[in-house]
């Protein structure tokens, strides 16, 4: 760790335990990871490997049991619930496998949501949301309700929502998992293009074809970071 520039995100010895039914279950075990500005990183692992836990911690939806996680030098562990909400609002854009759009709201209203909680005035929200929808090629769908859109269109709305506040990090959790291969390809193309424009992307997936789009891949099995060779070996 001799870089003279600080990474965007740094996880060091991050461990996460869960209490389920009085039993402590390990989600992550001493994970070290740096993400630099402009990275396109894929986290690969089978289901139950702890990659969702990692995603939740990276997205500030959860805090580590031990170890430290810093975003732009801020230690997340010391933040209150409200400060975490603020951090999610300003620094992180989520893209989920099941899209997670508000079904009865229009595409534009969905994209406006992060701006609403950032305290952006109404007129600016509308303008910024339209801009973000244009980035993903959905200008003509801004007034459609999200449940009137196709899966690929929904995921593009979700990407626009993730981008609208210009976050430091775009976190995509199996973004193509609910899409057919053609629309999945379109979504991946958008993520690649955005990364080319300077957006930092972390992609969580179990699909090696998807992971290959990233510039760097890390592997996670049973809550631990492993090398590619170990990963192949463990998967048999």
């Amino acid at each position: 760790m001799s870089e003279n520039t600080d990474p965007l995100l740094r996880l060091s010895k991050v461990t996460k335990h869960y209490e389920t039914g009085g039993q402590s279950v390990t989600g992550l075990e001493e994970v070290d990871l740096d993400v630099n500005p402009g990275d396109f990183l894929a986290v690969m692992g089978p289901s139950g490997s702890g990659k969702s836990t990692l995603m939740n911690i990276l997205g500030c939806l959860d805090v580590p049991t031990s170890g430290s996680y810093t975003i732009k030098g801020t230690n997340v562990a010391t933040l209150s619930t409200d400060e975490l909400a603020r951090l999610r609002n300003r620094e992180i854009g989520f893209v989920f496998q099941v899209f997670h759009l508000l079904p009865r709201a229009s595409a534009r209203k969905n994209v406006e949501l992060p701006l609403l909680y950032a305290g952006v005035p109404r007129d600016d929200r509308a303008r910024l949301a339209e801009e973000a929808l244009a980035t993903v090629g959905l200008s003509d769908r801004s007034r459609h309700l999200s449940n009137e859109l196709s899966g690929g269109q929904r995921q593009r709305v979700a990407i626009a929502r993730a981008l609208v506040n210009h976050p430091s990090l775009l976190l995509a959790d199996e973004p193509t998992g609910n899409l057919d291969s053609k629309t999945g390809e379109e979504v991946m193309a958008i993520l690649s293009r955005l990364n080319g424009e300077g957006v930092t992307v972390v992609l969580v997936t179990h699909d090696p074809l998807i992971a290959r789009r990233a510039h760097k891949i890390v592997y996670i099995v049973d809550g631990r970071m492993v090398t590619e060779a170990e990963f192949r070996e463990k998967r048999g």
Partner: protein
Amino acid sequence: MNFLEYLSVAFEALRANRLRAALTMLGVVIGVAAVILLVSLGTGTKNYVERQFAGLGSNILIITPGKVETRGGPPMVGPARHKLTMSDSNILQKKGYLFGGVAPVVFGSAEVRLSGRTRNVSVLGVTPAFSEVRNLRVEIGAFLTEADVEAKRRVCVIGRTVRKELFGNANALGQIVKLNGARFRVVGIMENKGVSLGVDIDDIVFVPVRTAQDLFDLDSLFEILISVRNMNDIESGKAMAKSIMFHAHNRHEDFTVTDQRAILSSLFTILDTLTYVLGGIAGISLLVGGIGIMNIMLVTVKERTNEIGIRKAVGARNIDILLQFLFEATTLSAAGGLIGLVVGAAGAGALRWAFPKMPIEVPLWAVLLSFTFSLFVGIFFGVYPARKAAAMNPIEALRYE
């Protein structure tokens, strides 16, 4: 986020579920409308009674036989050792220098007959003082005189209704009518007074007090009315009447002195209490409406768990979620309250139109109070579901389908 933005989020959510929102509001609508209607009815009744009493004069003391407490505790009616008599009345007249008039009253009912026509009427045995004490005047002829009383003359003064029923348009003055078979000459006809407290003043026959005692075979009085000359002396007048009566009755307090105000104020206390009880019962339905809101909000929060997760993921703080659902609940109750106000006021108007005699007055305080109460009901019953929503873990909320 400012107030208006929370409000617009609340409106959007309610619009998405119009029927449910309308049904939930209905509870509050009915509650507020019921409060307004019932309180209006109570207030109208009180004002009606107040107007009825207004002409009666508030400087009047009433002495009745027996000891009765008009206020507080169960009424204690002891046996009257002495009845009220004409001599009591005379002593009061002689010694009571604060008194304007002392009017002994005998009360009974009799059948009045004129050549085949009969009518059952109330008969009051009175002295000339009665006319001035009760502020009742003769229109035609003259009222009873002192001489009529002393000589136990069989003369009477009749009310307008009695006159109309017996004589029609014919002249009544100087005519002979039969009261329980005894012949009485009509010497006067009272002026029109109308109905007061459900008693038709015009349907009464007045006879001299001693004549009435003979007629009903009584040696006592029903009551003694006293007018106090100066309004400010009403309390000392009361004390004076008590002291005179106390000595006249060999130091026994076997009578009761009440003033009109005491009767009025105890009546008003009853009417006020009635109004509050009615309003309170209606208020309970408002409370039930509030529970309906809480119920629906709990369902809503559960249903929208995923939405809460999404909002939290994109940066909503706990307070944002709390306020969002609190605004929704309060919007429901406030809108219900407003509609309830309109329904209640319209209902009061409709009742007045349908039954013009029904005393209904919508008091402003009831309008303000019931609306404010409905608002607080929404806040009170909205807090628990809203807190539940705010406390959700975003990861679990996102996972919820």
